[in-house]
Protein backbone atom coordinates (compact mmCIF):
# COMPACT_ATOMS: atom_id res chain seq x y z
CA UNK A 1 0.00 0.00 0.00
CA UNK A 2 2.67 2.42 1.13
CA UNK A 3 4.92 1.41 -1.76
CA UNK A 4 2.05 1.87 -4.23
CA UNK A 5 1.49 5.46 -3.13
CA UNK A 6 5.18 6.24 -3.58
CA UNK A 7 5.07 4.74 -7.08
CA UNK A 8 2.21 7.06 -7.96
CA UNK A 9 4.24 10.00 -6.78
CA UNK A 10 7.28 9.07 -8.85
CA UNK A 11 5.18 8.32 -11.92
CA UNK A 12 3.77 11.79 -11.53
CA UNK A 13 7.29 13.20 -11.36
CA UNK A 14 8.18 11.34 -14.55
CA UNK A 15 5.19 12.73 -16.43
CA UNK A 16 5.90 16.23 -15.12
CA UNK A 17 9.50 16.08 -16.35
CA UNK A 18 8.44 14.83 -19.81
CA UNK A 19 5.79 17.56 -20.09
CA UNK A 20 8.35 20.14 -18.96
CA UNK A 21 10.77 19.01 -21.63
CA UNK A 22 8.09 19.14 -24.30
CA UNK A 23 7.10 22.62 -23.17
CA UNK A 24 10.65 23.92 -23.29
CA UNK A 25 11.17 22.45 -26.77
CA UNK A 26 7.92 24.14 -27.82
CA UNK A 27 8.91 27.48 -26.34
CA UNK A 28 12.37 27.26 -27.87
CA UNK A 29 10.70 26.61 -31.22
CA UNK A 30 8.52 29.70 -30.75
CA UNK A 31 11.42 31.94 -29.87
CA UNK A 32 13.45 31.33 -32.99
CA UNK A 33 12.36 33.10 -36.15
CA UNK A 34 10.89 30.06 -37.86
CA UNK A 35 7.37 29.60 -39.13
CA UNK A 36 6.30 26.12 -38.14
CA UNK A 37 4.15 24.58 -40.80
CA UNK A 38 3.37 20.96 -40.00
CA UNK A 39 0.68 20.53 -42.68
CA UNK A 40 3.36 21.00 -45.32
CA UNK A 41 4.80 17.62 -44.23
CA UNK A 42 1.57 15.68 -44.67
CA UNK A 43 1.64 15.43 -48.51
CA UNK A 44 5.11 13.89 -48.24
CA UNK A 45 3.70 11.08 -46.12
CA UNK A 46 0.27 10.59 -47.73
CA UNK A 47 -0.15 12.43 -51.02
CA UNK A 48 -3.83 13.13 -51.73
CA UNK A 49 -3.26 15.76 -54.43
CA UNK A 50 -5.35 14.96 -57.50
CA UNK A 51 -3.42 13.51 -60.41
CA UNK A 52 -3.62 15.98 -63.33
CA UNK A 53 -3.74 14.99 -66.98
CA UNK A 54 -2.16 17.73 -69.07
CA UNK A 55 -2.00 18.42 -72.76
CA UNK A 56 1.32 17.55 -74.36
CA UNK A 57 0.88 19.64 -77.50
CA UNK A 58 -0.83 22.79 -78.71
CA UNK A 59 -4.00 21.93 -80.66
CA UNK A 60 -7.76 21.44 -80.61
CA UNK A 61 -9.79 18.87 -78.72
CA UNK A 62 -11.84 16.65 -81.01
CA UNK A 63 -13.45 13.22 -80.95
CA UNK A 64 -12.40 10.57 -83.46
CA UNK A 65 -14.67 7.96 -85.16
CA UNK A 66 -14.80 5.75 -82.06
CA UNK A 67 -15.78 8.73 -79.91
CA UNK A 68 -12.38 8.85 -78.21
CA UNK A 69 -11.19 12.35 -77.31
CA UNK A 70 -7.99 13.42 -79.00
CA UNK A 71 -5.95 16.59 -79.36
CA UNK A 72 -5.05 17.35 -82.94
CA UNK A 73 -1.89 19.40 -82.98
CA UNK A 74 -1.75 22.58 -85.06
CA UNK A 75 1.51 21.47 -86.63
CA UNK A 76 -0.15 18.31 -88.02
CA UNK A 77 1.76 15.72 -85.92
CA UNK A 78 0.27 12.58 -84.34
CA UNK A 79 -2.78 13.31 -82.14
CA UNK A 80 -2.56 12.86 -78.34
CA UNK A 81 -5.05 10.16 -77.33
CA UNK A 82 -7.00 10.72 -74.11
CA UNK A 83 -8.63 8.04 -71.96
CA UNK A 84 -12.38 8.30 -72.78
CA UNK A 85 -13.42 7.46 -69.20
CA UNK A 86 -11.98 10.69 -67.88
CA UNK A 87 -14.29 13.55 -66.97
CA UNK A 88 -12.89 16.27 -69.22
CA UNK A 89 -13.04 19.88 -68.14
CA UNK A 90 -13.17 20.93 -71.84
CA UNK A 91 -15.57 20.42 -74.65
CA UNK A 92 -15.09 19.56 -78.35
CA UNK A 93 -13.38 22.20 -80.43
CA UNK A 94 -11.67 23.95 -77.52
CA UNK A 95 -8.16 25.16 -78.13
CA UNK A 96 -5.57 23.79 -75.76
CA UNK A 97 -1.92 24.60 -75.17
CA UNK A 98 0.77 22.25 -73.94
CA UNK A 99 0.58 22.13 -70.15
CA UNK A 100 -3.17 22.84 -69.93
CA UNK A 101 -5.03 20.64 -67.46
CA UNK A 102 -7.47 18.40 -69.31
CA UNK A 103 -8.78 16.40 -66.36
CA UNK A 104 -7.92 15.57 -62.77
CA UNK A 105 -8.26 12.25 -60.97
CA UNK A 106 -8.90 11.92 -57.22
CA UNK A 107 -6.24 9.69 -55.71
CA UNK A 108 -4.24 8.90 -52.59
CA UNK A 109 -0.64 7.83 -52.99
CA UNK A 110 2.10 7.23 -50.47
CA UNK A 111 4.41 10.19 -50.27
CA UNK A 112 8.19 10.16 -50.71
CA UNK A 113 8.81 9.84 -46.96
CA UNK A 114 6.74 6.64 -46.74
CA UNK A 115 8.42 5.39 -49.90
CA UNK A 116 11.73 5.99 -48.18
CA UNK A 117 10.47 4.19 -45.11
CA UNK A 118 9.60 1.16 -47.25
CA UNK A 119 13.11 1.16 -48.72
CA UNK A 120 14.54 1.36 -45.20
CA UNK A 121 12.38 -1.60 -44.11
CA UNK A 122 13.35 -3.59 -47.19
CA UNK A 123 17.08 -2.99 -46.85
CA UNK A 124 16.92 -3.67 -43.08
CA UNK A 125 15.08 -6.98 -43.40
CA UNK A 126 17.31 -8.31 -46.19
CA UNK A 127 20.47 -7.21 -44.35
CA UNK A 128 19.17 -8.73 -41.11
CA UNK A 129 18.63 -12.13 -42.70
CA UNK A 130 22.13 -12.16 -44.19
CA UNK A 131 23.63 -10.80 -40.96
CA UNK A 132 22.10 -13.62 -38.92
CA UNK A 133 23.29 -16.31 -41.32
CA UNK A 134 26.83 -14.89 -41.61
CA UNK A 135 26.93 -14.08 -37.88
CA UNK A 136 25.91 -17.60 -36.93
CA UNK A 137 28.61 -19.11 -39.13
CA UNK A 138 31.30 -16.75 -37.88
CA UNK A 139 30.14 -17.23 -34.27
CA UNK A 140 30.43 -21.01 -34.61
CA UNK A 141 33.87 -20.61 -36.21
CA UNK A 142 34.83 -18.35 -33.33
CA UNK A 143 34.16 -21.10 -30.72
CA UNK A 144 35.71 -23.83 -32.87
CA UNK A 145 38.82 -25.64 -31.63
CA UNK A 146 40.28 -25.47 -35.14
CA UNK A 147 42.82 -22.58 -35.11
CA UNK A 148 42.31 -21.76 -38.81
CA UNK A 149 38.55 -21.28 -38.39
CA UNK A 150 38.92 -19.50 -35.07
CA UNK A 151 41.56 -17.06 -36.32
CA UNK A 152 39.61 -16.33 -39.49
CA UNK A 153 36.60 -15.45 -37.37
CA UNK A 154 38.65 -13.27 -35.01
CA UNK A 155 40.24 -11.42 -37.95
CA UNK A 156 36.86 -10.80 -39.57
CA UNK A 157 35.33 -9.52 -36.33
CA UNK A 158 38.26 -7.26 -35.49
CA UNK A 159 38.55 -5.75 -38.99
CA UNK A 160 34.84 -5.05 -39.30
CA UNK A 161 34.41 -3.72 -35.77
CA UNK A 162 37.55 -1.64 -36.04
CA UNK A 163 36.50 0.40 -39.05
CA UNK A 164 33.58 2.86 -39.40
CA UNK A 165 30.48 1.66 -41.17
CA UNK A 166 30.44 4.79 -43.32
CA UNK A 167 33.91 3.97 -44.63
CA UNK A 168 32.89 0.35 -45.21
CA UNK A 169 29.89 1.48 -47.23
CA UNK A 170 32.17 3.61 -49.43
CA UNK A 171 34.64 0.75 -49.86
CA UNK A 172 31.92 -1.75 -50.73
CA UNK A 173 30.22 0.66 -53.12
CA UNK A 174 33.22 2.17 -54.87
CA UNK A 175 35.71 -0.72 -54.74
CA UNK A 176 33.73 -3.95 -54.50
CA UNK A 177 30.87 -2.37 -56.42
CA UNK A 178 33.20 -1.58 -59.29
CA UNK A 179 35.02 -4.92 -59.24
CA UNK A 180 31.89 -7.05 -58.96
CA UNK A 181 29.56 -4.60 -60.73
CA UNK A 182 27.16 -4.39 -57.81
CA UNK A 183 24.03 -2.27 -57.88
CA UNK A 184 23.89 0.41 -55.19
CA UNK A 185 21.11 -1.38 -53.30
CA UNK A 186 23.11 -4.62 -53.31
CA UNK A 187 26.19 -2.74 -52.16
CA UNK A 188 24.18 -1.25 -49.31
CA UNK A 189 22.89 -4.67 -48.25
CA UNK A 190 26.39 -6.18 -48.42
CA UNK A 191 27.92 -3.42 -46.31
CA UNK A 192 25.15 -3.47 -43.70
CA UNK A 193 24.97 -7.24 -43.36
CA UNK A 194 28.73 -7.75 -43.22
CA UNK A 195 28.97 -5.01 -40.58
CA UNK A 196 26.09 -6.29 -38.44
CA UNK A 197 27.21 -9.91 -38.79
CA UNK A 198 30.45 -9.13 -36.93
CA UNK A 199 28.43 -7.98 -33.91
CA UNK A 200 25.94 -10.82 -34.24
CA UNK A 201 28.86 -13.27 -34.28
CA UNK A 202 30.17 -11.89 -30.99
CA UNK A 203 26.69 -12.06 -29.44
CA UNK A 204 26.31 -15.67 -30.56
CA UNK A 205 29.77 -16.56 -29.27
CA UNK A 206 28.93 -15.08 -25.87
CA UNK A 207 25.61 -16.93 -25.90
CA UNK A 208 27.22 -20.29 -26.69
CA UNK A 209 29.93 -19.80 -24.08
CA UNK A 210 27.33 -18.87 -21.45
CA UNK A 211 25.83 -22.38 -21.67
CA UNK A 212 27.40 -24.59 -18.97
CA UNK A 213 29.90 -27.10 -20.38
CA UNK A 214 27.87 -29.90 -18.77
CA UNK A 215 25.23 -29.44 -21.48
CA UNK A 216 27.68 -30.27 -24.25
CA UNK A 217 29.08 -33.16 -22.20
CA UNK A 218 25.62 -34.58 -21.57
CA UNK A 219 24.72 -34.33 -25.25
CA UNK A 220 27.99 -35.91 -26.38
CA UNK A 221 27.75 -38.68 -23.77
CA UNK A 222 24.40 -39.65 -25.35
CA UNK A 223 26.20 -40.27 -28.64
CA UNK A 224 25.34 -36.98 -30.33
CA UNK A 225 27.95 -35.62 -32.73
CA UNK A 226 29.26 -32.08 -32.15
CA UNK A 227 26.98 -30.54 -34.83
CA UNK A 228 23.91 -32.37 -33.49
CA UNK A 229 24.70 -31.30 -29.92
CA UNK A 230 25.04 -27.72 -31.17
CA UNK A 231 21.79 -27.78 -33.13
CA UNK A 232 19.54 -29.55 -30.64
CA UNK A 233 21.03 -28.65 -27.25
CA UNK A 234 23.38 -25.65 -27.23
CA UNK A 235 21.99 -23.26 -29.87
CA UNK A 236 18.34 -23.37 -28.74
CA UNK A 237 19.45 -22.38 -25.24
CA UNK A 238 21.95 -19.82 -26.49
CA UNK A 239 19.29 -18.34 -28.81
CA UNK A 240 17.09 -17.54 -25.83
CA UNK A 241 19.90 -15.84 -23.96
CA UNK A 242 21.05 -13.83 -26.96
CA UNK A 243 17.63 -12.36 -27.73
CA UNK A 244 18.00 -9.15 -25.66
CA UNK A 245 21.42 -8.16 -27.08
CA UNK A 246 20.27 -9.35 -30.52
CA UNK A 247 17.26 -7.00 -30.32
CA UNK A 248 19.64 -4.13 -29.60
CA UNK A 249 21.77 -5.10 -32.58
CA UNK A 250 18.77 -5.29 -34.92
CA UNK A 251 17.64 -1.87 -33.77
CA UNK A 252 21.15 -0.61 -34.50
CA UNK A 253 20.89 -2.15 -37.95
CA UNK A 254 17.72 -0.17 -38.71
CA UNK A 255 19.35 3.04 -37.55
CA UNK A 256 22.65 2.27 -39.32
CA UNK A 257 20.73 1.77 -42.55
CA UNK A 258 20.36 5.56 -42.67
CA UNK A 259 24.03 5.68 -43.69
CA UNK A 260 23.33 4.01 -47.04
CA UNK A 261 21.80 7.32 -48.12
CA UNK A 262 25.38 8.42 -48.87
CA UNK A 263 25.49 6.07 -51.85
CA UNK A 264 22.24 7.56 -53.15
CA UNK A 265 19.85 4.86 -52.01
CA UNK A 266 16.56 6.67 -51.43
CA UNK A 267 15.91 5.37 -47.92
CA UNK A 268 14.00 7.30 -45.28
CA UNK A 269 16.93 9.63 -44.51
CA UNK A 270 17.67 10.38 -48.17
CA UNK A 271 13.95 10.92 -48.81
CA UNK A 272 13.92 13.39 -45.94
CA UNK A 273 16.83 15.33 -47.43
CA UNK A 274 15.16 15.40 -50.86
CA UNK A 275 11.87 16.61 -49.40
CA UNK A 276 13.62 19.41 -47.53
CA UNK A 277 15.42 20.62 -50.64
CA UNK A 278 11.98 21.02 -52.22
CA UNK A 279 9.85 22.49 -49.45
CA UNK A 280 12.27 24.17 -47.03
CA UNK A 281 10.65 22.76 -43.88
CA UNK A 282 13.75 21.10 -42.39
CA UNK A 283 12.68 21.06 -38.75
CA UNK A 284 9.29 19.46 -39.38
CA UNK A 285 10.71 16.91 -41.82
CA UNK A 286 13.57 15.81 -39.57
CA UNK A 287 11.22 15.42 -36.61
CA UNK A 288 8.91 13.36 -38.82
CA UNK A 289 11.79 11.21 -40.06
CA UNK A 290 12.93 10.59 -36.47
CA UNK A 291 9.38 9.62 -35.50
CA UNK A 292 9.13 7.14 -38.39
CA UNK A 293 12.43 5.49 -37.33
CA UNK A 294 11.12 5.34 -33.78
CA UNK A 295 7.92 3.60 -34.91
CA UNK A 296 10.00 1.02 -36.77
CA UNK A 297 12.41 0.29 -33.92
CA UNK A 298 9.64 0.21 -31.30
CA UNK A 299 7.68 -2.32 -33.34
CA UNK A 300 10.78 -4.53 -33.59
CA UNK A 301 11.60 -4.30 -29.92
CA UNK A 302 7.98 -5.06 -29.02
CA UNK A 303 8.01 -8.14 -31.27
CA UNK A 304 11.21 -9.47 -29.72
CA UNK A 305 9.92 -8.90 -26.20
CA UNK A 306 6.87 -10.99 -27.07
CA UNK A 307 9.11 -13.75 -28.41
CA UNK A 308 11.18 -13.63 -25.21
CA UNK A 309 8.08 -14.03 -23.09
CA UNK A 310 6.97 -17.02 -25.16
CA UNK A 311 10.36 -18.70 -24.81
CA UNK A 312 10.32 -18.16 -21.05
CA UNK A 313 7.92 -21.12 -20.70
CA UNK A 314 10.73 -23.48 -19.59
CA UNK A 315 12.14 -21.10 -16.95
Amino acid sequence: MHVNQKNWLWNGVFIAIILGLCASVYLAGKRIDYSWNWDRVVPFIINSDPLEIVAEVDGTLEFNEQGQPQIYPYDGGDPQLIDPTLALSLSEGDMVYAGDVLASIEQTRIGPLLEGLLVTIEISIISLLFAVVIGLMVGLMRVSVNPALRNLAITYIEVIRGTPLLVQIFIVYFFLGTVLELERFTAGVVALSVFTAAYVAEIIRAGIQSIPSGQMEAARSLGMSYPKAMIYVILPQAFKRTLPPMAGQFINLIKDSSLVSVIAITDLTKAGREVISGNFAPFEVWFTVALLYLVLTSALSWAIQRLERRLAASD
Partner: protein
Amino acid sequence: MTKHDSNQPAAEAPIIIATDVDKIYPNGCHALKAVSTTVARGEVVVILGPSGSGKSTFLRTLNQLEVINGGSILIDGVDMYSKGTNINQLREQVGMVFQNFNLFPHKTALENVMLAPLKVSGREPKEVEEHARDLMYKVGMDQRMQNYPSHLSGGQQQRVAIARALAMKPKIMLFDEPTSALDPEMVGEVLDVMKSLAAEGMTMVVVTHEMGFAREVADRVLFMEEGALLVEDNPDDFFDHPSHPRLKQFLSKIF
Protein backbone atom coordinates in the same frame (compact mmCIF):
# COMPACT_ATOMS: atom_id res chain seq x y z
CA MET B 1 22.12 -56.69 -33.08
CA THR B 2 24.79 -54.06 -32.58
CA LYS B 3 27.35 -52.47 -34.83
CA HIS B 4 30.14 -54.51 -33.29
CA ASP B 5 28.76 -58.00 -33.80
CA SER B 6 31.55 -59.02 -36.14
CA ASN B 7 34.25 -58.74 -33.53
CA GLN B 8 32.11 -59.49 -30.48
CA PRO B 9 34.27 -61.26 -27.92
CA ALA B 10 33.13 -64.24 -25.88
CA ALA B 11 30.57 -63.41 -23.19
CA GLU B 12 33.12 -64.08 -20.45
CA ALA B 13 35.49 -61.37 -21.64
CA PRO B 14 35.34 -58.18 -19.53
CA ILE B 15 33.19 -55.43 -21.07
CA ILE B 16 35.67 -52.75 -20.01
CA ILE B 17 39.41 -53.31 -20.19
CA ALA B 18 41.52 -50.31 -19.13
CA THR B 19 45.26 -50.77 -19.41
CA ASP B 20 47.88 -48.34 -18.04
CA VAL B 21 45.63 -45.34 -18.53
CA ASP B 22 47.54 -42.07 -18.20
CA LYS B 23 46.04 -38.59 -18.12
CA ILE B 24 48.11 -35.44 -17.97
CA TYR B 25 46.30 -32.10 -18.14
CA PRO B 26 47.83 -29.29 -20.21
CA ASN B 27 48.70 -27.49 -16.96
CA GLY B 28 50.96 -30.42 -16.06
CA CYS B 29 48.65 -32.04 -13.52
CA HIS B 30 49.16 -35.81 -13.64
CA ALA B 31 45.56 -36.89 -13.02
CA LEU B 32 45.84 -40.60 -13.80
CA LYS B 33 48.93 -42.72 -13.36
CA ALA B 34 48.91 -46.09 -15.17
CA VAL B 35 45.44 -47.09 -14.04
CA SER B 36 44.56 -50.65 -15.08
CA THR B 37 41.36 -52.51 -14.31
CA THR B 38 38.62 -54.57 -15.91
CA VAL B 39 34.89 -54.65 -15.44
CA ALA B 40 32.94 -57.82 -16.15
CA ARG B 41 29.55 -57.89 -17.83
CA GLY B 42 26.82 -57.20 -15.26
CA GLU B 43 29.32 -56.19 -12.59
CA VAL B 44 28.79 -53.19 -10.31
CA VAL B 45 32.06 -51.43 -9.53
CA VAL B 46 32.25 -48.56 -7.06
CA ILE B 47 35.24 -46.20 -7.07
CA LEU B 48 36.11 -44.49 -3.78
CA GLY B 49 38.81 -42.05 -2.89
CA PRO B 50 39.45 -38.59 -1.50
CA SER B 51 38.53 -35.62 -3.69
CA GLY B 52 41.13 -34.91 -6.36
CA SER B 53 42.18 -38.56 -6.43
CA GLY B 54 41.29 -38.89 -10.13
CA LYS B 55 38.24 -41.13 -9.72
CA SER B 56 35.92 -38.85 -11.71
CA THR B 57 38.63 -38.31 -14.31
CA PHE B 58 39.00 -42.06 -14.72
CA LEU B 59 35.24 -42.47 -15.07
CA ARG B 60 35.17 -39.75 -17.73
CA THR B 61 37.90 -41.49 -19.75
CA LEU B 62 35.54 -44.48 -20.11
CA ASN B 63 33.35 -42.54 -22.57
CA GLN B 64 36.14 -40.26 -23.78
CA LEU B 65 34.86 -37.08 -22.17
CA GLU B 66 38.52 -37.01 -21.16
CA VAL B 67 41.06 -38.00 -23.82
CA ILE B 68 43.85 -40.13 -22.37
CA ASN B 69 47.54 -39.51 -22.93
CA GLY B 70 48.71 -43.09 -22.60
CA GLY B 71 47.47 -46.67 -22.28
CA SER B 72 44.36 -48.11 -23.87
CA ILE B 73 40.67 -48.61 -23.17
CA LEU B 74 38.56 -51.36 -24.73
CA ILE B 75 34.78 -51.16 -24.50
CA ASP B 76 33.10 -54.46 -25.36
CA GLY B 77 36.16 -55.47 -27.35
CA VAL B 78 36.43 -52.18 -29.27
CA ASP B 79 39.57 -50.11 -28.81
CA MET B 80 38.37 -46.58 -28.08
CA TYR B 81 41.46 -45.02 -29.66
CA SER B 82 41.93 -47.18 -32.75
CA LYS B 83 41.49 -45.31 -36.01
CA GLY B 84 38.27 -46.90 -37.24
CA THR B 85 36.34 -46.36 -34.00
CA ASN B 86 33.35 -44.05 -34.22
CA ILE B 87 33.31 -42.44 -30.79
CA ASN B 88 29.65 -41.41 -31.12
CA GLN B 89 28.58 -45.00 -31.76
CA LEU B 90 30.70 -46.12 -28.82
CA ARG B 91 29.15 -43.53 -26.52
CA GLU B 92 25.65 -44.78 -27.36
CA GLN B 93 26.59 -47.96 -25.49
CA VAL B 94 27.99 -46.12 -22.45
CA GLY B 95 25.37 -44.09 -20.60
CA MET B 96 26.49 -41.41 -18.19
CA VAL B 97 24.85 -39.74 -15.22
CA PHE B 98 26.38 -36.50 -13.94
CA GLN B 99 26.68 -34.93 -10.53
CA ASN B 100 24.79 -31.82 -11.71
CA PHE B 101 22.20 -33.80 -13.74
CA ASN B 102 22.81 -31.67 -16.86
CA LEU B 103 19.25 -32.05 -18.07
CA PHE B 104 18.42 -29.95 -21.12
CA PRO B 105 16.51 -27.01 -19.59
CA HIS B 106 14.65 -26.11 -22.79
CA LYS B 107 13.05 -29.56 -23.05
CA THR B 108 10.42 -31.22 -20.87
CA ALA B 109 11.39 -34.29 -18.86
CA LEU B 110 9.95 -36.61 -21.50
CA GLU B 111 11.61 -34.67 -24.35
CA ASN B 112 14.93 -34.93 -22.51
CA VAL B 113 14.61 -38.71 -22.57
CA MET B 114 13.47 -38.83 -26.20
CA LEU B 115 15.91 -36.37 -27.77
CA ALA B 116 18.97 -38.55 -28.31
CA PRO B 117 17.12 -41.69 -29.48
CA LEU B 118 15.24 -39.57 -32.03
CA LYS B 119 18.20 -37.58 -33.30
CA VAL B 120 20.97 -40.18 -33.03
CA SER B 121 19.51 -43.66 -33.34
CA GLY B 122 16.89 -42.73 -35.92
CA ARG B 123 14.36 -45.01 -34.24
CA GLU B 124 10.62 -44.72 -34.90
CA PRO B 125 9.17 -41.77 -32.93
CA LYS B 126 6.32 -43.93 -31.67
CA GLU B 127 8.64 -46.65 -30.41
CA VAL B 128 10.96 -44.05 -28.85
CA GLU B 129 8.09 -42.40 -26.99
CA GLU B 130 6.78 -45.72 -25.70
CA HIS B 131 10.25 -46.68 -24.50
CA ALA B 132 10.70 -43.24 -22.90
CA ARG B 133 7.38 -43.51 -21.06
CA ASP B 134 8.35 -46.98 -19.81
CA LEU B 135 11.65 -45.62 -18.52
CA MET B 136 9.93 -42.69 -16.80
CA TYR B 137 7.64 -45.17 -15.11
CA LYS B 138 10.63 -47.24 -14.09
CA VAL B 139 12.35 -44.29 -12.39
CA GLY B 140 9.06 -43.20 -10.82
CA MET B 141 8.71 -40.02 -12.86
CA ASP B 142 5.67 -40.97 -14.93
CA GLN B 143 3.57 -38.30 -13.19
CA ARG B 144 5.92 -35.44 -14.04
CA MET B 145 6.82 -36.18 -17.66
CA GLN B 146 5.58 -32.86 -19.06
CA ASN B 147 7.45 -30.73 -16.50
CA TYR B 148 10.49 -28.70 -17.41
CA PRO B 149 13.65 -29.51 -15.38
CA SER B 150 13.45 -26.17 -13.55
CA HIS B 151 10.16 -27.33 -12.05
CA LEU B 152 11.61 -30.59 -10.71
CA SER B 153 13.51 -31.26 -7.50
CA GLY B 154 17.14 -32.40 -7.63
CA GLY B 155 16.22 -36.00 -6.95
CA GLN B 156 13.56 -35.93 -9.66
CA GLN B 157 15.98 -34.35 -12.13
CA GLN B 158 18.58 -37.01 -11.43
CA ARG B 159 16.02 -39.78 -11.98
CA VAL B 160 15.08 -38.20 -15.33
CA ALA B 161 18.81 -38.05 -16.15
CA ILE B 162 19.10 -41.78 -15.46
CA ALA B 163 16.09 -42.46 -17.70
CA ARG B 164 17.67 -40.26 -20.39
CA ALA B 165 20.90 -42.28 -20.31
CA LEU B 166 18.95 -45.57 -20.37
CA ALA B 167 16.97 -44.42 -23.40
CA MET B 168 19.97 -45.15 -25.62
CA LYS B 169 19.83 -48.79 -24.43
CA PRO B 170 23.43 -48.71 -23.18
CA LYS B 171 25.43 -51.76 -22.15
CA ILE B 172 27.29 -49.84 -19.46
CA MET B 173 26.17 -47.05 -17.12
CA LEU B 174 28.65 -44.60 -15.61
CA PHE B 175 27.61 -42.62 -12.51
CA ASP B 176 29.70 -39.57 -11.59
CA GLU B 177 28.83 -38.74 -7.97
CA PRO B 178 25.11 -38.94 -8.77
CA THR B 179 23.94 -38.00 -5.27
CA SER B 180 26.54 -35.41 -4.28
CA ALA B 181 24.49 -32.41 -5.41
CA LEU B 182 21.28 -33.62 -3.77
CA ASP B 183 19.61 -32.61 -0.55
CA PRO B 184 19.97 -35.50 1.94
CA GLU B 185 16.30 -36.47 1.82
CA MET B 186 16.51 -37.03 -1.94
CA VAL B 187 19.55 -39.29 -1.96
CA GLY B 188 17.48 -42.39 -1.19
CA GLU B 189 15.17 -42.13 -4.21
CA VAL B 190 18.12 -41.94 -6.63
CA LEU B 191 20.01 -44.77 -4.94
CA ASP B 192 16.85 -46.92 -5.10
CA VAL B 193 16.70 -46.48 -8.87
CA MET B 194 20.39 -47.40 -9.11
CA LYS B 195 19.88 -50.48 -6.95
CA SER B 196 17.02 -51.73 -9.11
CA LEU B 197 19.19 -51.14 -12.16
CA ALA B 198 21.99 -53.19 -10.60
CA ALA B 199 19.51 -55.94 -9.75
CA GLU B 200 18.54 -56.13 -13.43
CA GLY B 201 22.13 -56.95 -14.27
CA MET B 202 23.27 -53.60 -15.74
CA THR B 203 27.03 -53.13 -15.85
CA MET B 204 27.70 -50.09 -13.66
CA VAL B 205 30.73 -48.04 -12.70
CA VAL B 206 29.88 -45.65 -9.88
CA VAL B 207 31.93 -42.85 -8.35
CA THR B 208 30.28 -41.99 -5.06
CA HIS B 209 30.70 -41.12 -1.42
CA GLU B 210 27.77 -43.33 -0.40
CA MET B 211 29.56 -46.05 1.60
CA GLY B 212 26.27 -47.82 2.32
CA PHE B 213 25.55 -48.16 -1.38
CA ALA B 214 29.08 -49.42 -2.02
CA ARG B 215 28.83 -52.07 0.66
CA GLU B 216 25.32 -53.18 -0.28
CA VAL B 217 25.35 -53.12 -4.07
CA ALA B 218 28.97 -53.23 -5.29
CA ASP B 219 30.54 -56.43 -6.53
CA ARG B 220 33.93 -54.78 -6.28
CA VAL B 221 35.27 -51.57 -4.76
CA LEU B 222 38.26 -49.62 -6.09
CA PHE B 223 40.25 -47.15 -4.03
CA MET B 224 42.14 -44.36 -5.80
CA GLU B 225 44.48 -41.75 -4.48
CA GLU B 226 46.55 -39.13 -6.31
CA GLY B 227 45.74 -40.60 -9.70
CA ALA B 228 46.76 -44.14 -8.83
CA LEU B 229 44.58 -47.19 -8.28
CA LEU B 230 45.72 -48.52 -4.89
CA VAL B 231 43.16 -51.16 -3.87
CA GLU B 232 40.70 -53.45 -5.69
CA ASP B 233 38.65 -55.71 -3.42
CA ASN B 234 35.23 -57.16 -2.70
CA PRO B 235 33.20 -54.85 -0.42
CA ASP B 236 33.44 -57.02 2.70
CA ASP B 237 37.23 -57.20 2.69
CA PHE B 238 37.46 -53.62 1.49
CA PHE B 239 35.57 -52.18 4.44
CA ASP B 240 36.17 -54.78 7.19
CA HIS B 241 39.76 -55.86 6.50
CA PRO B 242 41.46 -53.01 4.69
CA SER B 243 44.97 -54.02 3.74
CA HIS B 244 46.50 -50.82 2.37
CA PRO B 245 47.63 -48.24 4.96
CA ARG B 246 46.26 -45.33 2.85
CA LEU B 247 42.87 -47.04 2.65
CA LYS B 248 42.88 -47.61 6.44
CA GLN B 249 43.56 -43.91 6.91
CA PHE B 250 40.78 -42.96 4.46
CA LEU B 251 38.22 -45.25 6.11
CA SER B 252 39.15 -44.11 9.61
CA LYS B 253 38.32 -40.54 8.62
CA ILE B 254 34.89 -41.54 7.37
CA PHE B 255 33.69 -43.96 10.03
